[in-house]
Structures are given as C-alpha cells and as structure tokens.
C-alpha cells in the first residue's frame, strides 16, 4: 500500500473508526483521546520545520509557481464552494480548499485547526486528498510522457499539484532526476507556506465570527478568540529560520536540517499527528461522517479546485521556466 501514498494518517483514522464503530471505544481510553492537544503540539513542532529561507531555493520561478498560484487557487476554490456550490460549512470548505491547493494532509491539519473545523471535516479532507494523490501520482507522469512535455515543466506541474509530498518525490523521480529536483523544490516551497496559510485562515475566521455576530469588538476580544497555537507555530518557524540563516548554510544543513529537524522535531511531530488521527478515528461515528458528504459537494469542490490548480500551475510554470527565466531552466 506504500506505493499509493496511503500513509499513517489514513491507517490511524481507519483503525480508530473500526474500533469506535464496532466494539466501541473503551471508557478507560477516552481520557487519552485528546485530538486537539496532539494536533496543536504536533503543529508547533512542525513550525520548526517551516524554514522561510527555503522559498528561495529555485529563485523567482519557484516563488511564482508555489506562492502566487497556491493562494489564488485557495481563495478561488473557497469562493466557489461558498457562492456556487453553497457549501454550508465554511470550515469544511476552507479545509478541503487548503488541503487541495497547498500540500495535502499537513496543510489540512494546520488549516482545520486554525479555523476550528470539526474532526469529521478534517477526516473527509484527508480522505479526498489521499484518493486523488494515488490517482495523480500514477496518471500525471504518464500524461507528461505521452504529450512529450519537457520534464522540467512536468516536474514543476507535479510539484505544484500533487498533494502528498512523498508522492511528489515518487512521481518526480519516476520521470527523471531533473523532474524530481524541480518537483521536490516546488513542493518544499509550498510546504513552507503552511505557516502563513494557517495564520491567514485564523485571522479570516476570527474576523468572520465578529462580522457574523454583528458586534464591533476590540482587539482584546480578537486576541482571545485567536487560536494561540498558530502563534507558537509561527514563532518556532521564525526562530529556526533565523538560526538557519545566521549560522551559515553548511552548518545549518547539518545542525538544523539533518540534526534538530530530521533527528528530533520530525519524529515528535509524526507521533503527535499519528495520535491525533487515532483519536479522531476513535471519536468518529460513520453515520455522522456520511452526513458531511451529502450531495457530493466536497467531491465536486475538490475536483473543480484541482482542475483550476492543474491549469494555472501548468500555465505559470511554462511562463516562468520557459518564457521569463529560460536561463535558470537551461542550467538545471
């Protein structure tokens, strides 16, 4: 199953749901089912892996493909969900939009927490992402080869559209080394965007709540409602980014990239997210989950959003890599 990008999140939710919907979650386990705590702790640890200097790895083409197309697709898909599909739950709409446009499961977790989405909405977003990741990682390399698309363009296209990071590596490497380098770098730049997306979504939803209440409230009230873990997330990101740039790139590569991050925070973060997804599964009822899928609107939202993502990413990648910066492309 590892060939299809179905990782620990899916299995954790699945086994949790099997237990809760068959033999029932034992009462003695319930005190340990602390989804919010595990997710927020995991997200603060993830913040340490969000290094802002990574966005310059491939220069301006990478920034345009990852940081211009992604917010455009996110906002457009959210608008489409609200105005055209009329999805009732704004938080589900936002979680699916972020998960599809940014980088899959990790973006879904950060966004769902930032907008206080329900656990069933996060489960749905993760499920949709994993299904389409498996399809896209098989279909996209085949389409690229069949159409004779240059592999650098194909790599940028896959990096900006396939949700799961590991699937991007597999599909990119399958095409060629150059495609892998470009795809991986584009996806890494998108990964770094999670922090700002979570922050922006948190601000938007707090402001939305204020507008919906019809009352004008002060900054203190906004601060009280703002999800504090986002502050921890951004703070960890800033601290590690500053340390990374101040100790020199070679030392930073060893101590931060392969030391503190790959040796410590990544492991802790992985376990906290796994516990979070098990907790979600243990507390989820199949019947309640089915209700969120009514009318197929989440699926339609995902498909329409991903179609826009595929189109815009391909156009932007072509413009950046072949029209505006062909000299960078020639040297890759």
């Amino acid at each position, binding site marked *: *199953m*590892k*060939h*299809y*990008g*179905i*990782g*620990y*999140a899916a299995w954790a939710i699945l*086994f949790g749901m*099997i*237990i809760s*919907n*068959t*033999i*029932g979650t034992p009462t003695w386990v319930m005190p340990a089912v602390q989804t919010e705590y595990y997710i927020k702790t995991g997200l603060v640890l*993830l913040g340490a*892996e969000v290094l802002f200097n990574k966005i310059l*790895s*491939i*220069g301006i083409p990478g920034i345009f493909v990852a940081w211009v197309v992604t917010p455009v697709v996110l906002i457009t898909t959210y608008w489409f969900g609200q105005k055209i599909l009329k999805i009732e739950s704004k938080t589900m709409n936002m979680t699916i939009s972020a998960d599809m446009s940014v*980088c*899959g*499961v*990790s973006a879904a977790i950060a966004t769902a927490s930032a907008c206080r989405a329900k656990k069933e909405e996060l489960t749905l977003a993760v499920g949709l992402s994993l299904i389409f990741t498996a399809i896209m*990682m*098989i279909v996209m*390399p085949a389409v690229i080869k069949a159409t004779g698309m240059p592999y650098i363009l194909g790599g940028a296209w896959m990096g900006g559209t396939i949700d*799961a*990071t*590991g*699937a991007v*590596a*597999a*599909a*990119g*490497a*399958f095409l060629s080394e150059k495609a*892998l*380098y*470009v*795809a*991986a*770098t584009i*996806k*890494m730049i998108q*990964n770094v965007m999670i922090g700002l997306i979570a922050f922006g979504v948190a601000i938007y939803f707090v402001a939305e709540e204020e507008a919906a209440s019809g009352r004008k409230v002060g900054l203190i009230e906004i601060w009280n409602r703002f999800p504090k873990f986002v502050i921890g997330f951004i703070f960890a990101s800033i601290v590690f980014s500053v340390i990374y740039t101040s100790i020199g*790139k070679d030392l930073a*590569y060893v101590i931060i*990239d*392969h030391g503190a*991050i790959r040796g410590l925070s*990544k492991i802790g*973060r*992985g376990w906290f*997210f796994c516990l979070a997804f098990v907790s979600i599964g243990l507390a989820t009822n199949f019947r309640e989950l089915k209700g969120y899928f009514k009318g197929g609107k989440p699926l339609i939202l995902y498909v329409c959003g991903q179609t826009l993502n595929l189109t815009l990413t391909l156009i932007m990648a072509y413009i950046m890599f072949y029209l505006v910066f062909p*000299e*960078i492309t020639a*040297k*890759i």
Partner: protein
Amino acid sequence: MDPNSSLSKRISAFLASIAGCLVMIYVVGPWLDTLESIKPLADFIDERNIDANAYYYTEVEEFADAELNMKNTMQYMPK
C-alpha cells in the same frame, strides 16, 4: 453500528473489518501492483526506497538532495 447491539455482533463486525483491511493490504494492493499502468511506478518506488507516504518535505531524503542540487545550480550558474 448500533451501540445496543449484542457483543458477539460487534466483535464479528470488528473482526470482519480487520479481515477486510488485511485483504486490501495482502491481496488487493499486490494485485494492483501487477497492473500494467501501475507496475513500473511500484517497482521504481521499491528500487529507490522512496517514502511515497510522507506528508512533509523533511520526511523524504530526495527533497534534501533536490534542494542541494538546486542551490548549487543557482549559486554556481555561469554568468
């Protein structure tokens, strides 16, 4: 499942679900890997030992190599 249903029914449902998962993992998955459209990618992932399940770039070694390669390309590009 109805929480008021009998214990034996709930245990049967649990075992059936686990059996379903095992069938997916040990029968359906390997069969899908033999399909002409999937086999090349599946074999490639095994040969290169790529973690296709990773959720963040720090979990995949190929990303570290790609970043190093791109940094060198940008830094040492002939003027």
